[in-house]
Structures are given as structure tokens and as C-alpha cells.
């Protein structure tokens, strides 16, 4: 009960202050969000072409120019080779371990986020088809 009262007071305080409401954003917000995303995509592209991501000098882009043949729009899907429904980051890790002879990344590792962002960006405009082989 006490919590609710505190919350109510806090909300009233916000309503009368100059703090923006949840549904308010400006051109500069949009610009900042886009820049954040673009920056991460750029970082992803740079990891994608980086021979030092694994241990043998092989880069993702060697087999996947412009992240082609990664078909992110089909994930999650049943990955017959893993025998289960998998997310795209699991396949990225498979490639890190095998052709790149490197170490897998945590699903929420900033590098993984960047690479997935790059993959999605190169695939923009393609309709989602989760589960499709």
C-alpha cells in the first residue's frame, strides 16, 4: 500500500514536470536511435570481415558475402543438423567454432548483437518466415 502511494506521488510529479511522457519523442531522439543502430550494424560488418574473430584467419564474409545465405528471416527454425529448433545466434556460434576454429560467444555478447544486427540489416525488406527450411 505504501509502495502504491509513493508511485502515485511520483507519477503526479512527472506529469507536472518537464519530463517527456512515454509517447513523446522528438526528431533528435529518432536520429539518436538510428545512429545507435547504424553504429552497431557497422561494428557487426567490421566483425563479419575480421579474420581475428576466430583463430585461423577465416572471416564470416569469406563464405557469406554481404551476409548472404544466412536467411535470418527463417529463424527460429528446426535445424536438422542440431536436432532441435534453434536461433540464429546458435548457428553463428557453430560457424565460430568450426570454419573459424574459434570460441563461441554468449547470446547477449555485444559482438553477437552486432553481428546479428548486421545480418538483419543486409536482409532488410524480406518478409519473416520463421520455421522455413
Amino acid at each position, binding site marked *: 500500500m505504501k509502495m502504491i502511494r509513493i508511485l502515485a506521488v511520483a507519477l503526479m510529479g512527472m506529469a507536472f514536470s518537464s519530463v517527456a511522457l512515454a509517447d513523446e519523442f522528438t526528431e533528435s531522439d529518432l536520429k539518436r536511435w538510428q545512429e545507435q543502430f547504424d553504429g552497431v550494424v557497422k561494428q557487426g560488418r567490421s566483425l563479419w570481415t575480421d579474420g581475428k574473430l576466430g583463430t*585461423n*584467419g577465416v572471416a564470416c*564474409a569469406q563464405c557469406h558475402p554481404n551476409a548472404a*545465405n544466412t*536467411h535470418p528471416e527463417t529463424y527460429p527454425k528446426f535445424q536438422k*543438423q542440431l536436432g532441435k529448433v534453434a536461433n540464429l545466434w546458435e548457428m553463428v556460434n557453430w560457424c565460430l567454432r568450426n570454419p573459424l576454429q574459434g570460441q563461441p560467444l554468449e547470446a547477449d555478447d555485444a559482438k553477437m548483437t552486432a553481428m546479428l544486427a548486421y545480418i538483419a540489416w543486409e536482409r*532488410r*525488406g524480406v518478409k519473416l518466415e520463421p520455421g522455413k527450411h
Partner: protein
Amino acid sequence: MSQTFDRRTFLRNAALGVSASTLPFTLVELAFAKPEDTFTFAYISDSHIQHIKGTQFVRNWDRGLIRAVAETNLLTPKPDFVMFGGDLAQLGNKPELDHGAEMLSKLKGKVYHVMGEHDYYLDLGEYWSKLFGPQYYSFNHKGVHFIVLNSILTYDDWTFNRWPSPEQRMLEMAGLDNPNGSPFMVGDKQREWLRKDLAKVKKSTPIVVFSHSPLQKIYKGWNFWTEDAEQVQALLAPFDKVTVFYGHVHQIQYNQIGNISFTSAMATAWPWPYPQSYAQAEQLLPKLTVQMNRADPFFERDATGWQLIDIHSGRSRVNFNLYNNKGRTVAFDEKTGTPVDSAYQAPESRTPPQAHF
């Protein structure tokens, strides 16, 4: 004629025995009106031997080339020669070219070489030429005039003025999808050499040309492209029968432009997606080409291989020997006047899934 041809094919397959179903190369047969003039050669390409450090090389790419060499040596009857289609190395350095040359030295018989961009842009082909000889040349074999071109040259300004070091230049050209790259070309000097070379050849003589990049324009973004392709095609246009073989694309492609039949080679190293699988690209993959299924990375050698080519009547029959896939044959069809896949002509006869993502 067709009986003789079938018999030869049968004998070859019989001689190869069990291994025939798994052979991953491009074998080319050029057949002639007189059966004794029919001959074959093996065509291996794009091995991308990649140095790690010291004596370490990327195992995956090594295995592809080792297998192609071993299987080529098993062929009975022996092919007349072996053509290596370029990109022996990944970054054109001495350890890679030496290691690749050592593996190729196990091939029995004559080996010819085509220059690839990965062999070239570190020292502009200097060490490669020491190992393998001239960068463009021609020779005659059993009535066919063979021409090898260095098609991966580019604008002088890019080659000589743009990059602070040869290593940087090599890295920039090595990235297939790198926007800092530059379009391939045969160039004025070599086209003039080609014009003079062809002036000595009768128009009825079958011509077979090897280049690393396609001498046709498919997708500029990945340099599936030769900037002066039309000018080279024009020099070849007066001849009755012309076949162009190219590497670089790491996938099966074939096409017919006027009198010129085009067929690509597989890589022994790794496959590439078809350009249309890049959603942001406009590309011009020949409609004739029935595409390969997309590769399964869990099969390390999927969608890699090499070719055995039969040449008959100056036309070619390319047997794609794919390590992890059913082999394919693309042969010139006199009826349609184009190269045709022997099994996958129509959409309804294709193996699912044929979709590309």
C-alpha cells in the same frame, strides 16, 4: 557418334568404379566427329590456400585441394592435362603459393594455370609467374585452340596509386563484397595480344578460353564481372565454336551468348551463395543456369568440387564432381545451341529445396 560417346562415358565411369559417385571435380570432354579426337581434361579451381602462421594453413581449404588432386590422379583414362583455374592462394603470399604448388605437384601430367585475383594483388603476380610461367598465353591441343587470359586486372589508378601497401591492396581485393574493390578487366594490352593471337586461327577451329572471372557480366558487387567482357566477346564472335570456362564464382553457372558457351567451375575451398540470395542486389544470373541447392555448412565439403571436361566436335561436356552432392553434367546441346544440364532442365525435375535465401 552418340554410341561412341556413351561407350566412352561408360568406360570412364566403370573405371572410376565406386568413387565415381563422389568425385568432386570438373572434368571436361571436348568431343570431335572422329572419336579418336575426343579428349578430356580435368579442371580444378579456387583452392584459396590460407596461411595462418609458420607451417599452419587452414585445414578445411587444404582438404579440398588434396582431395581434388588425389581424385584427378585416379582418373582412367588419364585426362590429357589439368587446368588450374586460379585463386590457388588466399592472400597471394609465398607460403600460400608454395604450399599450393607443392600440393599440385602431386598431379600426374601437364598442369596449366590461370591467374586469380588472390594470387595477384600482393606482388602483381611476380611470385606466381616464377612458379607457373606467363600470365596469359595460348596453345593448341588436338585441333582445339586454347587461350588463357589474366582477366583479373583492374584500373591502374586503383592498382598503383590507391593503397599505402601491397598487403593492404591484397586485402582490399580479397574481400568479395568489399566496396573498396575494383572491377576486373582483361585490359587493352591483353586484348590486343588476343586479337593478334586469334588472327592466326581459322574461323572453323574450336576455341576454348580460360579466364578467372566470368567473361560476362553477372553481378558487379561481387566481381562476378569483367568490365571489358563485351570487347573480349567481340573478338571471339567470328569463330564457329567458342567455349569460355571461368572460376571465381564458386558455384555452377552456365550461359550462352551468341556463339559463346560459358561454364563456370566449382571451388575446392568453399561455395558461394548465388547473387540473388543477397536481397539488396540487382544481378543478372543467366536464366539458363539451374542453380545448386544452398550448401549445408555441416558438410564441410558441400557444394565444393572439381570438373572433368570432355571435348567433342569442339563442344564441351562438363562433369561436375561434387564432394557432398550428386554429380552434375552440363553439356552443349546441338538442338538448343546452349549448354544444358543433363538432369535438371525443367523446374519440375529439380530436387527440393531449390529455393535460395
